[in-house]
């Protein structure tokens, strides 16, 4: 199985006629079983097609054309229009929204997230590359063209969650090369406020039988890792977690942002060293190098498996 999306997930692309969006549609249609992209939206472009996908002026038109609820939307419109596009998707009963756009002011993101919460919808991103279920479906630019995505991602037991889109692929490729495929990989975005954090995706992976371990990529800035540590402890997660922390050098450079908008050391809790300490105290192993990750997660999965069977033996 997978989390968030599967072969049957229907979605639209808002901002479908943009250059990047056109590429993204091609990539998603070509990958795995072929994504079910049931429409696209660009105001004023009703009647056009992008790689055979019909274009509408509004989300409501797309829903009407589809003749029933649409599961998701990939939003790739300029930052000034993103909030409206996401509101439009939510108010048309779309429940999963992947926001690709970067440089959206925090207040807009927070408003989208609040509305999504009220309507029981979920936002992934902004400033992310989307979701991929290896060999099945991808929603967003994650992994790039189908050929490239197939090279990096393979099906298997590891759930991947990453604040960096590119590093989602780098880490998954490393796992694949070591024979560890992925159940689902999610690029959650690099902004200070995002729709879905590590801790918010954990329950989904926890409930997914295919997933046996979690690998995360993380950076200085924010409190998301502390939230994950708390979640893991409070829920006695069955899933071992291995983290990779990039940007350790930033601890010496407070107040300066590197890599992503949310990656900045403003207080002690934002530092890489503090985060590593927190993750470690929750039993999350932190890798020094990416190439160590496959063996670390493999060993921890094996450890859990043997302790569970030992427990079963005692009973």
């Amino acid at each position, binding site marked *: 199985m997978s989390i968030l999306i599967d072969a049957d997930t229907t979605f639209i692309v808002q901002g479908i006629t943009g250059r990047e969006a056109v590429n993204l549609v091609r990539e998603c249609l070509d990958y795995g079983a072929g994504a079910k992209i049931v429409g696209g939206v660009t105001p004023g472009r009703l009647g056009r097609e992008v790689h055979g996908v019909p274009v509408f002026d509004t989300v409501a038109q797309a829903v009407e054309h589809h003749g029933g609820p649409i599961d998701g939307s990939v939003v790739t419109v300029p930052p*000034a229009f993103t909030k409206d596009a996401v509101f439009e998707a939510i108010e048309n009963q779309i429940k999963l929204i992947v926001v690709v756009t970067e440089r959206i*002011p925090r207040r807009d993101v*927070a408003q989208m997230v*609040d509305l999504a919460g009220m309507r029981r919808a979920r936002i992934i991103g902004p400033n992310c590359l989307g979701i991929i279920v290896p060999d099945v479906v991808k929603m967003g*630019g994650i992994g790039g*063209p189908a050929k490239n995505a197939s090279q990096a991602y393979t099906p298997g037991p590891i759930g991947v969650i990453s604040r960096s*889109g590119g590093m989602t692929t*780098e880490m998954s490729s490393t796992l694949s*090369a070591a024979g560890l495929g992925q159940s689902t990989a999610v690029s959650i975005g690099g902004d200070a406020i995002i729709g879905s954090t590590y801790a918010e995706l954990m329950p989904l992976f926890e409930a997914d039988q295919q997933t046996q371990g979690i690998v995360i990529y993380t950076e200085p800035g924010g409190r998301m890792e*502390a939230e994950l540590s708390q979640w893991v402890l409070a829920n006695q997660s069955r899933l071992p977690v291995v983290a990779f922390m990039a940007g350790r050098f930033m601890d010496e450079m407070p107040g300066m942002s590197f890599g992503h908008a949310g990656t900045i050391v403003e207080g002690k809790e934002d530092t890489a060293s503090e985060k590593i300490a927190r993750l470690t105290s929750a039993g999350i192993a932190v890798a020094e190098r990416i190439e160590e990750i496959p063996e670390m997660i493999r060993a921890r999965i094996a450890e859990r498996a043997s302790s569970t069977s030992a427990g079963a033996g005692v009973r």
Partner: protein
Amino acid sequence: MRFFEYEAREIVKRAGIPVTDYGFTTNPAQAREIAQRIGGPTVIKSQVLSGGRMKAGGVKFADDPQQAEAHAREILALEIGGQEPRGVLVDPRADVEQEYYAGVVWDGTRKQPVMIFSPVGGIDIEQVAEEQPEKVSRRHFSNILPFSDFQAKEAIAATGVSGSALTRLTPILTRLAKLFVENDMTLAEINPLGRLADGSFIALDAHMEIENEARGRHKRLLAELGVGEQETRQAREPTPFEIAGEQIDASDHRGVAGNVTEFDGNLGLVIGAGGGSLTLFDAVRAHGGRPANYCEIGGNPSVAKACGLAKLVLSKPGVERIAVMMSIVSNTRVDIVARGVIKACLELGHDPAEKIAIFRIPGAWEEEGFKILERYGVEYADRSVSLNKAARRAVEKIEGVAAR
């Protein structure tokens, strides 16, 4: 972007929150005039962005206009934390009975703004929270519903404040919350918020930061405050090398080849993308390498842009070689970056095989890219070589010894 105190106070004033009758100036004679107008003892405060003004001698008390002028002259010439003051603020010395704290920040975990209030002001709120947690309240508020007076009252009452203080503080907190939201602030803090003998409240100092991504929709406010469009107000001023990097990035709208930060090592880095750059910079340092710079490429920049960035790095004094490395690319084309960096070497009269310590960019169009690199004899690596190993190889080559 952080505002100077005199700008922050103006923002507070515009929001309808009472402020003192202060004046801002860049010249000592004018400081005297302002003090005269105020007509009483004043405080002269250095206008710098860094903290610790008081300790550094950037805040002085004056009894009369003459002394105000003398203090202003001294403070205007005083560098604090490596920063020259923008000017001085001449503030009447208010007769304060009690100092309070009111602030709004984002809570990234709850994804909502949070109003923080305390009847213990004038000092760092973190310290109060640690020493007297019952004296600090936090009230999150919706991003969709407008902030309402009752929320301010709840925040105030939670610290045990009641009576006329509560009713008089309520509109101030509500206006502060509105100011935070409407101006896309990431920090809006009044500290201290003073209670005067007549029971009224007045803002005595303010700290405001606006989100960079939202500056575009507050052009009028910024212009009226006199904030230049180019002013970044980073933790440190950009160096000429970094400014040149920005210019290369701005030369062409396609992709990114910039976000340059200067360091003083001998290994030039042409690296990407966001997360890859962070990982690679760490890896170079972990192997004992000395980076000459940080940078980011991504989003498929043109050959000219990749070339421009590589040339900038290659031309930096002290740079012996460059390492061209990225995490697996899916959008950026390997061959385009390869062309760009080789072109940069050739145009500067260098042998690419000599100058490029390692090229490690796997992904889209890699066969084409690797072919070009082979033609020029440049050492390259595919995805089977990790970011860490590529970084180690670059350090080995530049240090001429086996790296750690």
